[in-house]
């Protein structure tokens, strides 16, 4: 396919998120006036798992963010990924992720939500490791998968316990049960599980380390998954569970402290970076920390701050990531110190970068300013640690302003510098996103009450039902938040001016830190690999002799142990039965053959003698009236003999192997004799009691009538118990396939 054709097709796929976006817009009035609209389809009704969908203010806001940024990210990617080997695969993953993420925010059933949650983890993994020839990209993808996947498992435990306690998985029905949950003995455990799920997904300290590493993904993916949508899934979850598990001291304390620490850590680390993309990654961690911190509150201003900042951040961060993508694409570098003067070559990108960065820094007239004002108002009303929350918010925002300056001023103003590629304006599909989203930040900033009424307030009301509402306004009067805003800007300016020294200190500090999450992860991985290798060496050492000995030995010891502990009566001692002479001869024949097996020095002789034992068993079956069993036994015996003969002729003689040495042989003999004795005793014990002929009678009666067959054995196999047989032939086929691959590999 021509390169231009594929770009056009790539752009056309933006119709999918666009159509959903328009569709969601039509739900907005309903979400504002009526609250939730819910739909339900049965999925696994037997265990209460249904495809429940609830559209309320919160899911609409998330849905609009997902599809809105989705449109621009798809348009951007059409050009950005042009000519890539796996162009089509990229778009498939991107759209599948988008749908999974939408499913996550629309789901109204815990299990459904969990399934979509894991799907987003999976697509994040595939997209981080999209450059699959790159060892480090694969490593980072695996890290993100393991960290968020482990959190997902914790979340599942929490969900199942919640479902077990309240008896429903319906998310919208949980809020009424919050009292039961919060007073339950397992409340703290459930809370811990849900929080671990949310914290790993939303990169909270101490799980934050995977997010900067996830920047191995193509830049539009970082813009979409790792700033605007997927990492917000944890935030979404916390908001949804706010009325269910929230409001307790444990909830508030944990969220405020973890969120505040994460925000500060992210902001400080962001200033310490020189790679633009990593810098943005750390500011995302900061933003996620802020969101968690405010979801720890329970006042309307605090929660409104969280929702407003969610929108603010999604807008400016996705725009900035796309800008960095353009810079990277057009100049060939992302190092902040080696780029300059881009305003001349790419004016529209500069516009996008400037508007987004000013929103990020919180300049008046931008949505970021509104977000910051409401944030300070919210922080002052926090129930737990208001001073800490306010300080963390001010410091993080000041650092943010410094980072915004670094991103928007450094590369675009100043003298143009020599870069790997000569910069020129990006194609329209690429600059459209940053320019439009940046402009949106400005428009929303000028008409904040509109944003408040249609987007923010319905979203807050969805998880915090109250009559009190916080208006979003440009100017609230001269009050504490405004003072803090001015302080933030001044502090941000100072930090911007000393940013190079900070970067130096940070680099110095990072090398001296004894433990980081990343290093702990590496150590954990190395330990897992080591213990797996050790365990494999122990139980999979490649000796068939050892395997058989282990299996038979464990069977004998376990069975004998359980039996000794539980048996009420042991079978009576053997008494010689009265058999016709021909059957005695058969027994003697088998015993003799067995003796030959043990003393034989050649493998062929041993195998043939073993065949005699097996055939003798077949004759016994025949004598006691089981022709099917006898037939099968005889055939299996014959084939075993043939196959074993084919294999054994290539092996060394018996007395050369280690198992043939005296101590080994005696031990093997001991195991064999005890197993044989045990099985004989078990058989005697089973047959000495009355036989339950209920099943036999059933089959005898129904075989001909219901299954039209006279051979009960075969009728059971192919009709009454055909599902078992199906399972067995699948096992046979798998064994055949495994044998084939082993043999085929050996032959090559």
């Amino acid at each position, binding site marked *: 396919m021509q390169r231009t054709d594929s770009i056009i097709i790539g752009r056309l796929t933006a119709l999918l998120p666009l159509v959903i976006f328009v569709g969601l817009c039509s739900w907005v009035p309903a979400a504002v006036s009526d609250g939730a609209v819910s739909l339900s389809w049965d999925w696994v009704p037997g265990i209460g798992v249904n495809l429940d969908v609830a559209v309320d203010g919160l899911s609409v806001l998330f849905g609009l963010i997902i599809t809105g940024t989705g449109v621009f990210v798809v348009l951007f990617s059409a050009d950005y990924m042009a000519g890539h080997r796996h162009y089509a695969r990229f778009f498939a993953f991107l759209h599948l992720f988008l749908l999974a993420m939408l499913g996550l925010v629309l789901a109204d059933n815990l299990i459904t939500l969990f399934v979509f949650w894991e799907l987003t983890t999976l697509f994040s993994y595939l997209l981080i490791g999209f450059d699959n020839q790159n060892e480090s990209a694969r490593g980072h993808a695996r890290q993100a998968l393991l960290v968020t996947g482990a959190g997902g498992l914790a979340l599942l435990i929490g969900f199942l316990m919640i479902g077990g306690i309240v008896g429903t998985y319906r998310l919208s029905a949980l809020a009424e049960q919050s009292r039961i949950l919060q007073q339950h003995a397992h409340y703290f455990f459930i809370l811990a599980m849900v929080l671990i799920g949310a914290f790993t997904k939303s990169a909270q300290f101490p799980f934050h380390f995977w997010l900067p590493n996830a920047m191995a993904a193509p830049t539009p993916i970082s813009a979409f998954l790792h700033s605007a949508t997927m990492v917000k899934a944890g935030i979404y979850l916390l908001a949804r569970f706010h009325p269910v598990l929230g409001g307790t001291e444990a909830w508030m304390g944990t969220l405020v402290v973890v969120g505040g620490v994460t925000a500060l850590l992210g902001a400080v680390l962001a200033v310490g970076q020189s790679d633009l993309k990593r810098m943005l990654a750390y500011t995302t961690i900061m933003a996620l920390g802020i969101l968690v911190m405010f979801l720890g509150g329970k006042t309307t201003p605090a929660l409104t701050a969280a929702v407003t900042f969610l929108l603010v951040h999604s807008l400016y961060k996705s725009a900035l990531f796309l800008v960095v993508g353009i810079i990277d694409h057009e100049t060939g570098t992302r190092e902040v110190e080696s780029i300059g003067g881009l305003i001349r070559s790419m004016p529209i990108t500069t516009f996008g970068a400037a508007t987004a960065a000013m929103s990020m820094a919180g300049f008046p007239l931008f949505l970021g300013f509104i977000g910051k004002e409401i944030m300070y108002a919210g922080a002052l009303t926090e129930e737990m640690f208001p001073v800490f929350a306010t300080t963390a918010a001010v410091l993080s925002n000041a650092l943010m302003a410094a980072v915004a300056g670094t991103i928007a001023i450094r590369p675009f103003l100043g003298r143009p510098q020599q870069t790997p590629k000569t910069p020129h304006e990006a194609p329209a599909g690429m600059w459209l996103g940053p320019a439009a989203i940046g402009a949106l930040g400005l428009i929303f900033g000028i008409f904040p009450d509109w944003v408040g009424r249609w987007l923010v307030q319905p979203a807050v009301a969805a998880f915090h039902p109250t009559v009190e509402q916080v208006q979003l306004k440009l100017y609230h009067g001269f009050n504490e938040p405004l003072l803090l805003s001015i302080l933030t800007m001044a502090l941000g300016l100072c930090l911007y001016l000393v940013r190079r020294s900070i970067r130096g200190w940070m680099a110095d500090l990072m090398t001296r830190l004894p433990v980081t999450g990343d290093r702990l992860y590496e150590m954990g991985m190395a330990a897992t690999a080591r213990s797996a290798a050790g365990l494999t060496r122990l139980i999979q050492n490649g000796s068939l002799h050892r395997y058989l000995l282990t299996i038979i030995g464990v069977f004998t010891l376990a069975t004998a142990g359980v039996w000794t502990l539980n048996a009420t009566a042991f079978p009576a001692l053997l008494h010689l039965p009265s058999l016709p002479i021909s059957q005695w001869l058969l027994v003697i024949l088998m015993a003799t053959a067995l003796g030959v097996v043990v003393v034989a020095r050649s493998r062929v002789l041993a195998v043939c003698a073993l065949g005699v034992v097996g055939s003798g068993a077949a004759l016994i079956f025949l004598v006691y009236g089981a022709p099917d069993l006898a037939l099968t036994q005889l055939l299996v015996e014959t*084939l075993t003999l043939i196959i074993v003969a084919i294999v054994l002729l290539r092996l060394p003689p018996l007395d050369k192997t280690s198992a043939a040495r005296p101590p080994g042989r005696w031990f093997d003999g001991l195991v064999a004799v005890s197993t044989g004795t045990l099985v004989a005793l078990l058989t005697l014990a089973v047959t000495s009691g009355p036989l339950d002929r209920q099943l036999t009678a059933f089959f005898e009666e129904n075989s001909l009538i219901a299954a039209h067959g006279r051979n009960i054995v075969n009728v059971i196999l192919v009709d009454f118990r055909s599902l078992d047989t199906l399972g067995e032939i699948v096992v046979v086929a798998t064994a055949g396939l495994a*044998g084939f691959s082993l043999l085929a590999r050996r032959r090559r």
Partner: protein
Amino acid sequence: MPSFILRAANRVLVGLILVFSVYLLLRGHNAPGGGFSAALVAATGFALFTIAEGPQPVRRALRIDPLVWVAWGLLLAIGSGLLAVVAGQPFLTGLWWPTDSPTGTPAVGTPLVFDVGIFLVVLGTILTLVLNLEER
């Protein structure tokens, strides 16, 4: 080189064994036999063929790789069960035809198809192993 006697006997025996195997497969529902036993008998026949003539002539005679037989066998077994689902009954329910047989017992049913599936899976698996072992 295998003996002349073995090769000569093989000509006669393999055909007889295979016919016997089909006989076992078809009568299995009413008398000792069935897909599993039939497959073992057929496998014995092919194993004899392999020992007498070597693996290549056997592969040529089989025409289709035995691993493919395994796949078809699984497909047949599952398909025979799905027929019941299509007819609105639980998976793997036996369907028989004709339903108004004058002798009282219908002539053919899906359990026979299922049995053929078992036959193909077991035979294909054993042949895969035997042929690959001989080719080493």
